[in-house]
């Protein structure tokens, strides 16, 4: 199989910071939080977390009803983000209809909101009489990818990876591999999720959700901080357009970045806590594929969700791979943990940092703990020319992913 260079030509975002890539960047630079008190969580018995990072209301009416009727919120988010990404890429509807364009988009589950509706009917009356014709298309695991293919007229590959919180990064990575090996010329890739108490409850049950700041939502999550107490769940969608370099150049597209290396692996020792060694292996493998050294990486976008164990493990792994000098930050303090969307959203944010020459610090990081504090953790905006970065996503299920990206490619390749 051929190995082609893969570039990024478009990005789209629906995030708790707002709808659209400019809104994400504005929120990050302003250091805003999107974490709020969430009444729908507060009413759930036994759920100790009452804060979340929810997407502000979006205009779903821009999607034709006959396409939208198959969509839950996550597919609506994915569609809005994908349209923005395609517009940025300068790819019109006719240009993505051929078999050489595919989608690789995942979510952690199918729609939990719609799944709940089904089981409420079953629980209350052992009945399916009130089920709508479109219900299944919202709860199937491939809902986002399937709906995107329909609404965009995609006739190439349709891939729907599901890898918990690593889904977004892995979807982009698998999409890049489809392009690199010549199976597709263009891939629309990313992740999307919608908030539901089930997700928050999972982390709460695992003692991994933030609950000490229910009355001060702007102070959580606190990646790397000594007073961090866990994850704040969020939602949204991040989408990128990937293309073979020669394909993008042939149509004179503006290239915003390049996928240099991607790796994913499993951590079989513990399904709930990815091991340091497997994180190290994952990042080292992505670097190896990129042909770059750790010293050439100018910024690490850490997964760091704000849990006690997860942040410490990632920092130990980062120190092993990059030493203590490489700037590191996590964006969970701004956007919460957008689940399947987080990897793609953070990839987009990292691309923006490259373009703007401005590194975004970790929000709510006031006093690093002893282990995390050994790294060069960003606490203020930092102007810096950035050529190469790595984006991490480490997830429940013992699955790791890392992607090495660079800015616009030079003309030497």
């Amino acid at each position, binding site marked *: 199989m051929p190995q082609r260079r893969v570039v990024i030509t478009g990005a789209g975002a629906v995030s708790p910071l707002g709808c659209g890539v400019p809104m994400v960047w504005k929120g990050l630079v302003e250091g805003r939080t999107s974490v709020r008190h969430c009444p729908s969580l507060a009413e759930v018995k036994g759920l100790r977390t009452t804060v979340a990072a929810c997407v502000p209301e979006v205009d779903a009416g821009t999607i034709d*009803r*006959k396409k939208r*009727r198959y969509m839950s919120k996550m597919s609506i988010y994915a569609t809005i983000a994908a349209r923005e990404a395609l517009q940025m890429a300068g790819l019109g509807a006719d240009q993505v209809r051929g078999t050489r364009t595919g989608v690789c988009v995942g979510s952690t589950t199918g729609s939990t909101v719609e799944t709940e509706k089904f089981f409420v009917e079953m629980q209350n009356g052992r009945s399916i*009489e*009130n*089920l*709508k*014709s*479109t219900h299944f298309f919202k709860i199937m695991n491939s809902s986002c990818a399937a709906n995107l293919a329909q609404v965009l007229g995609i006739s190439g590959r349709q891939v729907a990876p599901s890898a918990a919180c690593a889904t977004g990064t892995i979807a982009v990575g698998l999409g890049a591999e489809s392009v690199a090996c010549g199976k597709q010329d263009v891939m629309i890739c990313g992740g999307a999720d919608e908030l539901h108490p089930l997700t928050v409850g999972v982390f709460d049950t695992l003692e991994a959700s933030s609950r000490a700041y229910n009355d001060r939502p702007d102070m959580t999550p606190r990646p790397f901080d000594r007073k961090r107490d866990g994850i704040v769940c969020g939602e949204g969608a991040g989408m990128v357009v990937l293309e073979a370099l020669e394909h993008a150049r042939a149509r004179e597209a503006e290239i915003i970045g390049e996928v240099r290396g991607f790796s994913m692996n499993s951590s079989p020792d513990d399904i709930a806590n990815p091991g340091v060694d497997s994180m190290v292996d994952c990042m080292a493998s992505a670097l190896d594929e990129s042909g770059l050294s750790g010293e050439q990486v100018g910024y690490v976008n850490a997964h760091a969700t704000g849990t006690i164990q997860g942040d410490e493990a990632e920092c130990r792994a980062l120190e092993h791979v990059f030493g203590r000098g490489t700037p590191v930050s996590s964006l969970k303090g701004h956007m919460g943990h957008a689940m399947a969307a987080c990897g793609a959203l953070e990839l987009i944010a990292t691309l923006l940092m490259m373009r703007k020459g401005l590194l975004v610090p970790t929000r709510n990081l006031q006093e690093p703990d002893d282990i995390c504090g050994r790294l060069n953790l960003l606490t203020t905006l930092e102007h810096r020319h950035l050529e190469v970065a790595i984006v991490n996503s480490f997830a429940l299920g013992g699955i790791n992913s890392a992607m090495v990206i660079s800015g616009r490619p030079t003309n030497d390749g």
Partner: protein
Amino acid sequence: MTDDKVIEIVNQSLVEEFELDPGMMTPDVFLVEGLGFDSLDFVDVVVVLQQAFGIELREEPRVREVRTLGDLHHLVIEKKRELEGLKQQ
């Protein structure tokens, strides 16, 4: 419930579920050609009206004969009367 009230609820239910223009909800409008319904929409019409009126439509053969909104009004009014007749027995 009066026939006019049934018609009002049918129209309101369809307008909300299928995002229709209320101005189009005239008895002579065809559901497929006029309101743009397809086969899946018909499945959901049945669900919506069953919920709204407590009637059974899914196994009702007369549903297949419905062409216009007026036909639908007529069917729902008949089913509603049948249901109320059963309740009085």
